Protein backbone atom coordinates (compact mmCIF):
# COMPACT_ATOMS: atom_id res chain seq x y z
CA UNK A 1 0.00 0.00 0.00
CA UNK A 2 1.47 3.36 -0.97
CA UNK A 3 1.42 6.49 1.17
CA UNK A 4 -1.26 7.92 -1.06
CA UNK A 5 -3.49 4.88 -0.63
CA UNK A 6 -3.05 5.12 3.13
CA UNK A 7 -3.98 8.80 3.11
CA UNK A 8 -7.06 7.97 1.04
CA UNK A 9 -8.19 5.28 3.46
CA UNK A 10 -7.55 7.51 6.42
CA UNK A 11 -9.57 10.33 4.88
CA UNK A 12 -12.42 7.96 4.03
CA UNK A 13 -12.52 6.55 7.56
CA UNK A 14 -12.35 10.00 9.14
CA UNK A 15 -15.23 11.19 6.94
CA UNK A 16 -17.25 8.13 7.84
CA UNK A 17 -16.60 8.71 11.55
CA UNK A 18 -17.62 12.37 11.25
CA UNK A 19 -20.80 11.33 9.42
CA UNK A 20 -21.56 8.72 12.06
CA UNK A 21 -21.48 11.45 14.70
CA UNK A 22 -24.06 13.54 12.81
CA UNK A 23 -26.93 12.67 15.25
CA UNK A 24 -24.87 14.31 18.01
CA UNK A 25 -24.66 17.74 16.43
CA UNK A 26 -27.75 17.83 14.16
CA UNK A 27 -31.34 18.59 15.09
CA UNK A 28 -34.24 16.38 14.01
CA UNK A 29 -34.69 18.22 10.70
CA UNK A 30 -30.99 17.98 9.89
CA UNK A 31 -30.93 14.31 10.72
CA UNK A 32 -33.97 13.77 8.50
CA UNK A 33 -32.07 15.36 5.63
CA UNK A 34 -29.04 13.18 6.35
CA UNK A 35 -31.22 10.06 6.26
CA UNK A 36 -32.59 11.11 2.91
CA UNK A 37 -29.12 11.82 1.57
CA UNK A 38 -27.67 8.54 2.87
CA UNK A 39 -30.61 6.66 1.37
CA UNK A 40 -30.29 8.24 -2.06
CA UNK A 41 -26.49 8.01 -2.16
CA UNK A 42 -26.86 4.29 -1.51
CA UNK A 43 -29.64 3.91 -4.07
CA UNK A 44 -27.75 5.81 -6.77
CA UNK A 45 -24.47 3.98 -6.11
CA UNK A 46 -26.22 0.61 -6.14
CA UNK A 47 -28.05 1.55 -9.34
CA UNK A 48 -24.80 2.57 -11.02
CA UNK A 49 -23.12 -0.64 -9.87
CA UNK A 50 -25.09 -2.51 -12.49
CA UNK A 51 -26.43 0.06 -14.93
CA UNK A 52 -23.23 2.10 -15.28
CA UNK A 53 -20.91 -0.45 -16.87
CA UNK A 54 -23.56 -2.54 -18.64
CA UNK A 55 -25.57 0.45 -19.91
CA UNK A 56 -28.75 -1.49 -19.07
CA UNK A 57 -30.93 1.32 -17.77
CA UNK A 58 -32.86 -0.16 -14.87
CA UNK A 59 -36.16 1.58 -14.17
CA UNK A 60 -37.04 -0.91 -11.44
CA UNK A 61 -35.40 0.82 -8.49
CA UNK A 62 -38.69 1.44 -6.73
CA UNK A 63 -39.86 -2.12 -7.36
CA UNK A 64 -37.06 -3.40 -5.14
CA UNK A 65 -37.23 -0.48 -2.75
CA UNK A 66 -40.94 -1.13 -2.32
CA UNK A 67 -40.43 -4.86 -1.83
CA UNK A 68 -38.04 -4.06 1.01
CA UNK A 69 -40.32 -1.53 2.65
CA UNK A 70 -43.44 -3.63 2.31
CA UNK A 71 -41.74 -6.76 3.65
CA UNK A 72 -40.88 -4.84 6.80
CA UNK A 73 -44.47 -3.61 7.04
CA UNK A 74 -45.82 -7.14 6.82
CA UNK A 75 -43.30 -8.98 8.96
CA UNK A 76 -42.18 -6.42 11.56
CA UNK A 77 -44.44 -7.82 14.25
CA UNK A 78 -43.86 -11.49 13.59
CA UNK A 79 -40.10 -11.75 13.17
CA UNK A 80 -37.10 -10.18 14.91
CA UNK A 81 -35.79 -7.14 13.02
CA UNK A 82 -32.52 -8.62 11.65
CA UNK A 83 -34.45 -11.58 10.32
CA UNK A 84 -36.97 -9.24 8.67
CA UNK A 85 -34.10 -7.53 6.84
CA UNK A 86 -32.76 -10.91 5.75
CA UNK A 87 -36.13 -12.03 4.41
CA UNK A 88 -36.52 -8.72 2.55
CA UNK A 89 -33.08 -9.16 0.96
CA UNK A 90 -33.95 -12.70 -0.07
CA UNK A 91 -37.22 -11.66 -1.69
CA UNK A 92 -35.38 -8.89 -3.55
CA UNK A 93 -32.79 -11.43 -4.68
CA UNK A 94 -35.38 -13.87 -5.99
CA UNK A 95 -37.25 -11.17 -7.93
CA UNK A 96 -33.96 -9.91 -9.37
CA UNK A 97 -33.02 -13.41 -10.49
CA UNK A 98 -36.39 -13.95 -12.18
CA UNK A 99 -36.18 -10.60 -13.99
CA UNK A 100 -32.52 -11.07 -14.84
CA UNK A 101 -32.74 -14.63 -16.06
CA UNK A 102 -35.62 -13.81 -18.37
CA UNK A 103 -34.27 -10.55 -19.83
CA UNK A 104 -30.50 -10.26 -19.52
CA UNK A 105 -29.77 -12.72 -22.32
CA UNK A 106 -31.69 -10.45 -24.67
CA UNK A 107 -31.01 -7.00 -26.08
CA UNK A 108 -30.92 -4.26 -23.46
CA UNK A 109 -34.21 -2.73 -24.51
CA UNK A 110 -36.20 -5.75 -23.30
CA UNK A 111 -34.65 -5.36 -19.89
CA UNK A 112 -35.54 -1.66 -19.78
CA UNK A 113 -39.14 -2.31 -20.77
CA UNK A 114 -39.50 -5.11 -18.28
CA UNK A 115 -38.14 -3.04 -15.43
CA UNK A 116 -40.23 -0.05 -16.53
CA UNK A 117 -43.47 -1.85 -15.71
CA UNK A 118 -42.20 -4.01 -12.86
CA UNK A 119 -42.97 -1.60 -10.03
CA UNK A 120 -46.51 -1.05 -11.29
CA UNK A 121 -47.02 -4.81 -11.61
CA UNK A 122 -45.80 -5.54 -8.08
CA UNK A 123 -47.85 -2.64 -6.70
CA UNK A 124 -51.01 -3.97 -8.32
CA UNK A 125 -50.30 -7.53 -7.19
CA UNK A 126 -49.68 -6.46 -3.59
CA UNK A 127 -52.82 -4.29 -3.66
CA UNK A 128 -54.83 -7.17 -5.09
CA UNK A 129 -53.49 -9.53 -2.45
CA UNK A 130 -54.17 -7.15 0.41
CA UNK A 131 -57.69 -6.34 -0.74
CA UNK A 132 -58.75 -9.87 -1.63
CA UNK A 133 -56.82 -12.08 0.75
CA UNK A 134 -55.94 -10.15 3.89
CA UNK A 135 -58.62 -7.48 3.52
CA UNK A 136 -56.39 -4.68 4.80
CA UNK A 137 -54.91 -2.08 2.50
CA UNK A 138 -52.28 -0.20 4.44
CA UNK A 139 -50.26 -1.31 7.43
CA UNK A 140 -48.68 0.29 10.46
CA UNK A 141 -45.06 -0.27 11.40
CA UNK A 142 -44.37 -0.14 15.12
CA UNK A 143 -40.67 -0.72 15.50
CA UNK A 144 -38.63 0.59 18.33
CA UNK A 145 -36.13 2.33 16.06
CA UNK A 146 -35.17 5.98 16.39
CA UNK A 147 -34.08 8.25 13.55
CA UNK A 148 -30.46 7.79 14.51
CA UNK A 149 -30.78 3.98 14.30
CA UNK A 150 -32.13 4.28 10.79
CA UNK A 151 -29.43 6.78 9.91
CA UNK A 152 -26.61 4.57 11.16
CA UNK A 153 -27.94 1.56 9.30
CA UNK A 154 -28.20 3.52 6.08
CA UNK A 155 -24.74 4.99 6.57
CA UNK A 156 -23.28 1.52 7.07
CA UNK A 157 -25.12 0.18 4.03
CA UNK A 158 -24.01 3.18 1.94
CA UNK A 159 -20.38 2.79 3.00
CA UNK A 160 -20.53 -0.93 2.24
CA UNK A 161 -22.02 -0.22 -1.18
CA UNK A 162 -19.30 2.27 -2.08
CA UNK A 163 -16.68 -0.17 -0.80
CA UNK A 164 -18.23 -2.92 -2.91
CA UNK A 165 -18.24 -0.67 -5.97
CA UNK A 166 -14.59 0.19 -5.32
CA UNK A 167 -13.65 -3.46 -4.91
CA UNK A 168 -15.52 -4.46 -8.07
CA UNK A 169 -13.72 -1.72 -9.99
CA UNK A 170 -10.38 -3.34 -9.14
CA UNK A 171 -11.41 -6.96 -9.39
CA UNK A 172 -11.70 -9.44 -12.20
CA UNK A 173 -15.45 -8.91 -12.43
CA UNK A 174 -14.83 -5.19 -12.88
CA UNK A 175 -12.58 -5.86 -15.85
CA UNK A 176 -15.18 -8.29 -17.19
CA UNK A 177 -17.77 -5.51 -17.03
CA UNK A 178 -15.54 -3.08 -18.87
CA UNK A 179 -14.81 -5.67 -21.56
CA UNK A 180 -18.53 -6.38 -21.92
CA UNK A 181 -19.24 -2.66 -22.11
CA UNK A 182 -16.73 -2.30 -24.95
CA UNK A 183 -17.51 -5.35 -27.06
CA UNK A 184 -19.66 -8.31 -26.09
CA UNK A 185 -18.31 -10.50 -28.89
CA UNK A 186 -14.73 -10.07 -27.70
CA UNK A 187 -15.89 -10.60 -24.13
CA UNK A 188 -17.43 -13.96 -24.99
CA UNK A 189 -14.33 -14.98 -26.97
CA UNK A 190 -12.17 -14.16 -23.96
CA UNK A 191 -14.15 -16.73 -22.00
CA UNK A 192 -16.45 -14.35 -20.11
CA UNK A 193 -19.91 -15.69 -19.30
CA UNK A 194 -21.68 -12.43 -20.09
CA UNK A 195 -25.15 -13.36 -18.84
CA UNK A 196 -23.76 -14.59 -15.52
CA UNK A 197 -21.70 -11.45 -14.88
CA UNK A 198 -24.70 -9.24 -15.64
CA UNK A 199 -26.98 -11.36 -13.50
CA UNK A 200 -24.59 -11.28 -10.54
CA UNK A 201 -24.27 -7.50 -10.72
CA UNK A 202 -27.99 -6.95 -11.15
CA UNK A 203 -28.75 -9.20 -8.19
CA UNK A 204 -26.20 -7.44 -5.97
CA UNK A 205 -27.58 -4.04 -6.94
CA UNK A 206 -31.18 -5.16 -6.39
CA UNK A 207 -30.47 -6.60 -2.93
CA UNK A 208 -28.87 -3.33 -1.79
CA UNK A 209 -31.83 -1.34 -3.11
CA UNK A 210 -34.24 -3.69 -1.34
CA UNK A 211 -32.36 -3.16 1.91
CA UNK A 212 -32.56 0.64 1.56
CA UNK A 213 -36.34 0.29 1.30
CA UNK A 214 -36.45 -2.05 4.27
CA UNK A 215 -34.33 0.17 6.48
CA UNK A 216 -36.23 3.35 5.61
CA UNK A 217 -39.68 1.80 6.06
CA UNK A 218 -40.03 2.51 9.81
CA UNK A 219 -39.76 6.24 9.02
CA UNK A 220 -43.21 6.17 7.47
CA UNK A 221 -45.08 4.43 10.34
CA UNK A 222 -48.02 3.99 7.95
CA UNK A 223 -47.29 2.10 4.72
CA UNK A 224 -49.44 1.27 1.72
CA UNK A 225 -48.50 0.13 -1.80
CA UNK A 226 -49.02 3.55 -3.40
CA UNK A 227 -46.53 5.09 -0.95
CA UNK A 228 -43.69 2.57 -1.17
CA UNK A 229 -44.01 1.91 -4.92
CA UNK A 230 -43.88 5.59 -5.87
CA UNK A 231 -42.18 5.77 -9.30
CA UNK A 232 -40.57 9.10 -8.39
CA UNK A 233 -38.01 7.11 -6.37
CA UNK A 234 -36.80 5.28 -9.52
CA UNK A 235 -36.71 8.54 -11.33
CA UNK A 236 -34.71 10.40 -8.66
CA UNK A 237 -32.19 7.57 -8.35
CA UNK A 238 -31.64 7.53 -12.09
CA UNK A 239 -31.24 11.27 -12.44
CA UNK A 240 -28.77 11.42 -9.51
CA UNK A 241 -26.59 8.62 -10.85
CA UNK A 242 -26.63 10.16 -14.32
CA UNK A 243 -25.81 13.65 -13.16
CA UNK A 244 -22.81 12.45 -11.18
CA UNK A 245 -21.77 9.87 -13.73
CA UNK A 246 -22.72 6.21 -13.50
CA UNK A 247 -19.26 5.04 -14.53
CA UNK A 248 -17.34 6.69 -11.73
CA UNK A 249 -17.04 5.47 -8.17
CA UNK A 250 -17.94 8.83 -6.60
CA UNK A 251 -20.23 9.94 -9.42
CA UNK A 252 -23.56 8.79 -7.92
CA UNK A 253 -22.62 10.34 -4.57
CA UNK A 254 -21.70 13.66 -6.16
CA UNK A 255 -24.99 13.62 -8.05
CA UNK A 256 -27.14 12.52 -5.12
CA UNK A 257 -26.15 15.11 -2.51
CA UNK A 258 -26.90 18.34 -4.43
CA UNK A 259 -29.94 16.91 -6.19
CA UNK A 260 -31.49 15.60 -2.98
CA UNK A 261 -31.17 19.05 -1.40
CA UNK A 262 -32.61 20.62 -4.55
CA UNK A 263 -35.56 18.19 -4.50
CA UNK A 264 -36.24 18.97 -0.85
CA UNK A 265 -36.34 22.64 -1.67
CA UNK A 266 -38.48 22.09 -4.76
CA UNK A 267 -41.03 19.89 -3.00
CA UNK A 268 -41.31 22.42 -0.19
CA UNK A 269 -41.70 25.42 -2.50
CA UNK A 270 -43.29 24.02 -5.67
CA UNK A 271 -45.20 20.94 -4.53
CA UNK A 272 -47.52 21.00 -7.55
CA UNK A 273 -44.95 21.63 -10.25
CA UNK A 274 -42.35 19.35 -8.73
CA UNK A 275 -42.45 16.57 -11.32
CA UNK A 276 -42.53 18.99 -14.27
CA UNK A 277 -39.37 20.70 -13.03
CA UNK A 278 -37.75 17.32 -12.38
CA UNK A 279 -38.60 16.10 -15.86
CA UNK A 280 -37.15 19.19 -17.49
CA UNK A 281 -34.04 19.01 -15.36
CA UNK A 282 -33.63 15.36 -16.27
CA UNK A 283 -33.95 16.06 -20.00
CA UNK A 284 -31.39 18.83 -19.64
CA UNK A 285 -28.93 16.42 -18.00
CA UNK A 286 -29.39 13.85 -20.76
CA UNK A 287 -28.62 16.54 -23.33
CA UNK A 288 -25.88 18.54 -21.67
CA UNK A 289 -24.06 16.06 -19.41
CA UNK A 290 -24.75 12.61 -20.84
CA UNK A 291 -21.76 11.10 -19.07
CA UNK A 292 -22.13 12.98 -15.82
CA UNK A 293 -20.28 15.78 -14.07
CA UNK A 294 -17.31 13.68 -12.99
CA UNK A 295 -16.48 12.59 -16.54
CA UNK A 296 -17.15 16.14 -17.71
CA UNK A 297 -14.73 17.56 -15.14
CA UNK A 298 -12.09 14.97 -16.06
CA UNK A 299 -12.45 15.93 -19.69
CA UNK A 300 -12.01 19.62 -18.94
CA UNK A 301 -9.02 18.78 -16.77
CA UNK A 302 -7.27 16.66 -19.38
CA UNK A 303 -8.19 18.96 -22.22
CA UNK A 304 -10.10 18.02 -25.32
CA UNK A 305 -7.56 15.49 -26.58
CA UNK A 306 -8.25 12.63 -24.18
CA UNK A 307 -11.91 11.77 -24.32
CA UNK A 308 -13.17 10.11 -21.15
CA UNK A 309 -14.27 6.51 -21.32
CA UNK A 310 -17.94 6.01 -22.10
Amino acid sequence: MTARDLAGWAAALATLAALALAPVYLDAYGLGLMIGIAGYVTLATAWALFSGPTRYVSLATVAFFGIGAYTVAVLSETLPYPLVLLVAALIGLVVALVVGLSTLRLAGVYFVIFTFGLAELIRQLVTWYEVNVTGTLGRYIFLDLGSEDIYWQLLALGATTILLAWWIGRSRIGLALRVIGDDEVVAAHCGIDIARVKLALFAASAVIITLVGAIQAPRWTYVEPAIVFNPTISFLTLIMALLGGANRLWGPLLGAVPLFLLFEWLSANFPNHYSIILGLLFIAIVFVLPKGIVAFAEKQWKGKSAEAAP
Partner: protein
Amino acid sequence: MLVTAILTGLVLGGTYALVAMGLTLQYGIARIMNLAFGDTIVTASFLAFALYSGAGINPVVGLAIAVPAGFAFGYVVYSLMMRPLVARAKDKASLEIDSILATFGLLFVIQGTLFVIFGANYTSYTYLNVPVTILGTNIAANRLLAFALAVLIGGGLYLALTRTRWGTALRAVGVSPAAASLVGIDVNRQARFAFALGSALAAAGGVAISMYQTFTAASGVVFTMKALIVVIMGGVGNVLGALSAGLILGLVETFVATYLDPGLTLAATYLIFLAILLWRPSGLFGRASR
Protein backbone atom coordinates in the same frame (compact mmCIF):
# COMPACT_ATOMS: atom_id res chain seq x y z
CA MET B 1 -71.18 -14.14 -20.72
CA LEU B 2 -68.71 -15.70 -23.15
CA VAL B 3 -70.01 -13.72 -26.11
CA THR B 4 -69.90 -10.54 -24.03
CA ALA B 5 -66.33 -11.27 -23.01
CA ILE B 6 -65.29 -11.89 -26.61
CA LEU B 7 -66.96 -8.73 -27.86
CA THR B 8 -65.58 -6.58 -25.04
CA GLY B 9 -62.17 -8.13 -25.58
CA LEU B 10 -62.22 -7.36 -29.29
CA VAL B 11 -63.19 -3.75 -28.59
CA LEU B 12 -60.37 -3.33 -26.11
CA GLY B 13 -57.99 -5.19 -28.41
CA GLY B 14 -58.91 -2.91 -31.28
CA THR B 15 -57.81 0.11 -29.30
CA TYR B 16 -54.62 -1.65 -28.18
CA ALA B 17 -53.85 -2.60 -31.76
CA LEU B 18 -54.32 1.01 -32.83
CA VAL B 19 -51.95 2.47 -30.25
CA ALA B 20 -49.42 -0.34 -30.64
CA MET B 21 -49.32 0.44 -34.34
CA GLY B 22 -48.33 3.97 -33.36
CA LEU B 23 -45.57 2.73 -31.08
CA THR B 24 -44.24 0.30 -33.67
CA LEU B 25 -43.99 3.20 -36.12
CA GLN B 26 -41.99 5.17 -33.57
CA TYR B 27 -39.71 2.36 -32.50
CA GLY B 28 -39.54 0.30 -35.68
CA ILE B 29 -39.14 3.16 -38.14
CA ALA B 30 -37.98 6.24 -36.26
CA ARG B 31 -35.91 4.01 -33.89
CA ILE B 32 -37.00 5.97 -30.84
CA MET B 33 -38.00 4.02 -27.75
CA ASN B 34 -40.64 6.38 -26.40
CA LEU B 35 -41.45 5.80 -22.74
CA ALA B 36 -43.78 8.83 -22.78
CA PHE B 37 -45.98 7.16 -25.39
CA GLY B 38 -48.69 6.22 -22.87
CA ASP B 39 -48.74 9.77 -21.59
CA THR B 40 -49.52 10.99 -25.08
CA ILE B 41 -52.48 8.60 -25.00
CA VAL B 42 -53.67 9.86 -21.62
CA THR B 43 -53.24 13.48 -22.69
CA ALA B 44 -55.55 12.83 -25.63
CA SER B 45 -58.06 11.18 -23.29
CA PHE B 46 -58.05 14.28 -21.10
CA LEU B 47 -58.34 16.49 -24.17
CA ALA B 48 -61.42 14.57 -25.30
CA PHE B 49 -62.81 14.82 -21.77
CA ALA B 50 -62.19 18.56 -21.59
CA LEU B 51 -63.72 19.16 -25.02
CA TYR B 52 -66.79 17.09 -24.21
CA SER B 53 -67.51 18.18 -20.66
CA GLY B 54 -66.21 21.72 -21.09
CA ALA B 55 -67.38 22.73 -24.55
CA GLY B 56 -69.88 20.00 -25.38
CA ILE B 57 -67.87 18.87 -28.38
CA ASN B 58 -68.54 15.18 -28.99
CA PRO B 59 -65.54 12.83 -29.02
CA VAL B 60 -65.78 12.02 -32.71
CA VAL B 61 -65.29 15.69 -33.48
CA GLY B 62 -62.76 15.72 -30.66
CA LEU B 63 -60.86 13.09 -32.62
CA ALA B 64 -60.55 15.50 -35.50
CA ILE B 65 -58.88 17.92 -33.10
CA ALA B 66 -56.80 15.43 -31.09
CA VAL B 67 -55.27 13.56 -34.02
CA PRO B 68 -53.73 16.59 -35.77
CA ALA B 69 -52.69 17.90 -32.34
CA GLY B 70 -51.01 14.57 -31.61
CA PHE B 71 -49.26 14.70 -34.96
CA ALA B 72 -48.02 18.24 -34.31
CA PHE B 73 -46.87 17.26 -30.82
CA GLY B 74 -44.91 14.28 -32.15
CA TYR B 75 -43.42 16.43 -34.89
CA VAL B 76 -42.21 19.04 -32.42
CA VAL B 77 -40.91 16.47 -29.92
CA TYR B 78 -38.95 14.70 -32.63
CA SER B 79 -37.50 17.87 -34.08
CA LEU B 80 -36.54 19.42 -30.76
CA MET B 81 -35.65 16.43 -28.60
CA MET B 82 -35.00 13.37 -30.71
CA ARG B 83 -33.20 14.79 -33.71
CA PRO B 84 -30.18 16.03 -31.68
CA LEU B 85 -29.98 12.62 -30.00
CA VAL B 86 -30.09 10.85 -33.36
CA ALA B 87 -27.36 13.14 -34.63
CA ARG B 88 -25.03 12.47 -31.72
CA ALA B 89 -25.69 8.70 -31.42
CA LYS B 90 -22.68 6.55 -32.28
CA ASP B 91 -24.76 3.44 -32.86
CA LYS B 92 -28.23 2.03 -32.45
CA ALA B 93 -27.66 1.06 -28.82
CA SER B 94 -26.61 4.53 -27.69
CA LEU B 95 -29.61 6.08 -29.47
CA GLU B 96 -31.82 3.59 -27.68
CA ILE B 97 -30.41 4.54 -24.28
CA ASP B 98 -30.53 8.27 -24.98
CA SER B 99 -34.10 8.10 -26.25
CA ILE B 100 -35.21 6.00 -23.28
CA LEU B 101 -33.71 8.51 -20.87
CA ALA B 102 -35.00 11.60 -22.63
CA THR B 103 -38.54 10.26 -23.00
CA PHE B 104 -38.48 9.09 -19.39
CA GLY B 105 -37.96 12.75 -18.49
CA LEU B 106 -40.72 13.76 -20.90
CA LEU B 107 -43.03 11.29 -19.16
CA PHE B 108 -42.67 13.17 -15.89
CA VAL B 109 -43.17 16.53 -17.59
CA ILE B 110 -46.42 15.41 -19.24
CA GLN B 111 -47.66 13.59 -16.16
CA GLY B 112 -46.88 16.57 -13.95
CA THR B 113 -48.70 18.92 -16.32
CA LEU B 114 -51.77 16.68 -16.32
CA PHE B 115 -51.74 16.54 -12.51
CA VAL B 116 -51.63 20.32 -12.30
CA ILE B 117 -54.51 20.79 -14.74
CA PHE B 118 -56.77 17.82 -14.03
CA GLY B 119 -55.72 16.53 -10.60
CA ALA B 120 -55.01 12.96 -9.60
CA ASN B 121 -58.54 11.56 -9.66
CA TYR B 122 -60.02 8.95 -11.95
CA THR B 123 -61.79 10.74 -14.77
CA SER B 124 -64.48 9.65 -17.20
CA TYR B 125 -67.46 11.02 -19.06
CA THR B 126 -70.66 9.55 -20.37
CA TYR B 127 -71.08 9.52 -24.10
CA LEU B 128 -73.35 7.20 -26.09
CA ASN B 129 -73.69 4.93 -23.10
CA VAL B 130 -76.70 3.14 -24.55
CA PRO B 131 -76.85 -0.63 -24.91
CA VAL B 132 -76.86 -2.13 -28.38
CA THR B 133 -77.80 -5.78 -28.87
CA ILE B 134 -75.38 -7.85 -30.91
CA LEU B 135 -75.41 -11.66 -31.12
CA GLY B 136 -77.89 -11.75 -28.27
CA THR B 137 -75.77 -9.74 -25.90
CA ASN B 138 -75.73 -6.11 -24.86
CA ILE B 139 -72.75 -3.90 -25.47
CA ALA B 140 -72.44 -0.14 -25.02
CA ALA B 141 -72.64 1.90 -28.18
CA ASN B 142 -69.55 3.92 -27.22
CA ARG B 143 -67.46 0.73 -27.23
CA LEU B 144 -68.74 -0.18 -30.68
CA LEU B 145 -67.96 3.31 -31.90
CA ALA B 146 -64.43 3.08 -30.46
CA PHE B 147 -63.95 -0.23 -32.18
CA ALA B 148 -65.24 1.08 -35.50
CA LEU B 149 -62.88 4.05 -35.28
CA ALA B 150 -59.93 1.78 -34.49
CA VAL B 151 -60.73 -0.46 -37.45
CA LEU B 152 -61.21 2.52 -39.74
CA ILE B 153 -58.03 4.36 -38.75
CA GLY B 154 -55.85 1.29 -38.21
CA GLY B 155 -57.06 -0.48 -41.34
CA GLY B 156 -56.71 2.64 -43.47
CA LEU B 157 -53.18 3.22 -42.27
CA TYR B 158 -52.27 -0.42 -42.79
CA LEU B 159 -53.44 -0.22 -46.40
CA ALA B 160 -51.57 3.04 -46.91
CA LEU B 161 -48.37 1.54 -45.49
CA THR B 162 -48.49 -1.60 -47.57
CA ARG B 163 -50.10 -0.46 -50.82
CA THR B 164 -48.69 2.97 -51.54
CA ARG B 165 -45.30 4.22 -52.64
CA TRP B 166 -45.33 6.52 -49.63
CA GLY B 167 -45.83 3.61 -47.25
CA THR B 168 -43.11 1.57 -48.91
CA ALA B 169 -40.61 4.40 -48.46
CA LEU B 170 -41.56 4.63 -44.80
CA ARG B 171 -41.17 0.90 -44.25
CA ALA B 172 -37.88 0.90 -46.13
CA VAL B 173 -36.46 3.23 -43.47
CA GLY B 174 -37.57 0.74 -40.85
CA VAL B 175 -35.79 -2.14 -42.57
CA SER B 176 -32.52 -0.33 -43.25
CA PRO B 177 -31.96 3.40 -42.84
CA ALA B 178 -28.61 3.19 -44.63
CA ALA B 179 -29.98 1.42 -47.69
CA ALA B 180 -33.03 3.67 -47.78
CA SER B 181 -30.87 6.77 -48.02
CA LEU B 182 -28.96 5.15 -50.89
CA VAL B 183 -32.11 4.94 -52.98
CA GLY B 184 -32.88 8.59 -52.39
CA ILE B 185 -35.18 8.45 -49.34
CA ASP B 186 -34.71 11.31 -46.89
CA VAL B 187 -34.33 9.17 -43.76
CA ASN B 188 -34.50 12.05 -41.31
CA ARG B 189 -37.74 13.33 -42.79
CA GLN B 190 -39.29 9.87 -42.85
CA ALA B 191 -38.26 9.20 -39.26
CA ARG B 192 -39.76 12.50 -38.11
CA PHE B 193 -42.92 11.73 -40.03
CA ALA B 194 -43.15 8.22 -38.60
CA PHE B 195 -42.70 9.56 -35.09
CA ALA B 196 -45.37 12.21 -35.60
CA LEU B 197 -47.71 9.64 -37.13
CA GLY B 198 -47.12 7.41 -34.12
CA SER B 199 -48.14 10.27 -31.83
CA ALA B 200 -51.25 10.89 -33.92
CA LEU B 201 -52.22 7.24 -33.51
CA ALA B 202 -51.61 7.48 -29.77
CA ALA B 203 -53.94 10.48 -29.69
CA ALA B 204 -56.60 8.59 -31.66
CA GLY B 205 -56.27 5.69 -29.22
CA GLY B 206 -56.52 8.05 -26.27
CA VAL B 207 -59.77 9.56 -27.53
CA ALA B 208 -61.17 6.08 -28.20
CA ILE B 209 -60.22 4.86 -24.73
CA SER B 210 -61.76 7.91 -23.06
CA MET B 211 -65.15 7.02 -24.52
CA TYR B 212 -65.46 3.80 -22.52
CA GLN B 213 -62.83 3.71 -19.76
CA THR B 214 -61.80 5.73 -16.74
CA PHE B 215 -58.30 7.13 -16.69
CA THR B 216 -55.98 9.15 -14.47
CA ALA B 217 -52.95 11.30 -15.06
CA ALA B 218 -50.86 8.36 -13.84
CA SER B 219 -52.27 5.83 -16.34
CA GLY B 220 -49.57 6.57 -18.89
CA VAL B 221 -47.07 4.02 -17.60
CA VAL B 222 -49.56 1.16 -17.91
CA PHE B 223 -50.59 2.21 -21.41
CA THR B 224 -46.93 2.42 -22.47
CA MET B 225 -46.30 -1.03 -21.03
CA LYS B 226 -49.26 -2.57 -22.80
CA ALA B 227 -48.36 -0.96 -26.10
CA LEU B 228 -44.75 -2.14 -25.74
CA ILE B 229 -45.82 -5.67 -24.96
CA VAL B 230 -48.10 -5.70 -27.98
CA VAL B 231 -45.29 -4.39 -30.18
CA ILE B 232 -42.83 -7.03 -28.95
CA MET B 233 -45.44 -9.75 -29.20
CA GLY B 234 -46.15 -8.76 -32.79
CA GLY B 235 -42.48 -8.35 -33.70
CA VAL B 236 -40.85 -4.91 -33.71
CA GLY B 237 -41.75 -2.97 -36.85
CA ASN B 238 -44.33 -5.53 -37.92
CA VAL B 239 -47.60 -3.62 -38.40
CA LEU B 240 -49.80 -6.64 -39.03
CA GLY B 241 -48.18 -8.37 -36.05
CA ALA B 242 -49.04 -5.41 -33.82
CA LEU B 243 -52.67 -5.51 -34.99
CA SER B 244 -53.03 -9.22 -34.23
CA ALA B 245 -51.14 -9.04 -30.94
CA GLY B 246 -53.31 -6.09 -29.85
CA LEU B 247 -56.46 -8.12 -30.37
CA ILE B 248 -54.97 -11.07 -28.49
CA LEU B 249 -53.99 -8.89 -25.54
CA GLY B 250 -57.46 -7.30 -25.43
CA LEU B 251 -59.10 -10.71 -25.39
CA VAL B 252 -56.78 -12.11 -22.71
CA GLU B 253 -57.30 -9.09 -20.47
CA THR B 254 -61.06 -9.23 -20.79
CA PHE B 255 -61.13 -12.94 -20.08
CA VAL B 256 -58.93 -12.53 -17.01
CA ALA B 257 -61.09 -9.64 -15.81
CA THR B 258 -64.33 -11.57 -16.44
CA TYR B 259 -63.41 -14.99 -15.17
CA LEU B 260 -60.62 -14.36 -12.68
CA ASP B 261 -60.33 -10.89 -11.21
CA PRO B 262 -60.12 -7.40 -12.75
CA GLY B 263 -57.20 -6.66 -10.41
CA LEU B 264 -55.07 -9.26 -12.15
CA THR B 265 -55.20 -7.98 -15.73
CA LEU B 266 -51.80 -6.32 -15.57
CA ALA B 267 -50.32 -9.47 -14.04
CA ALA B 268 -51.77 -11.48 -16.94
CA THR B 269 -50.32 -9.00 -19.41
CA TYR B 270 -46.95 -9.38 -17.77
CA LEU B 271 -47.16 -13.13 -17.77
CA ILE B 272 -47.69 -13.02 -21.53
CA PHE B 273 -44.71 -10.70 -21.84
CA LEU B 274 -42.53 -13.06 -19.81
CA ALA B 275 -43.62 -16.04 -21.89
CA ILE B 276 -42.83 -14.16 -25.11
CA LEU B 277 -39.38 -13.15 -23.84
CA LEU B 278 -38.51 -16.68 -22.82
CA TRP B 279 -40.02 -18.42 -25.77
CA ARG B 280 -39.95 -16.11 -28.81
CA PRO B 281 -38.18 -12.80 -28.18
CA SER B 282 -38.48 -11.88 -31.84
CA GLY B 283 -42.27 -11.90 -31.62
CA LEU B 284 -45.09 -14.33 -32.24
CA PHE B 285 -45.05 -13.70 -35.95
CA GLY B 286 -41.40 -14.36 -36.66
CA ARG B 287 -39.47 -11.66 -38.47
CA ALA B 288 -36.61 -11.04 -36.12
CA SER B 289 -35.68 -7.44 -36.70
CA ARG B 290 -32.71 -7.28 -34.44
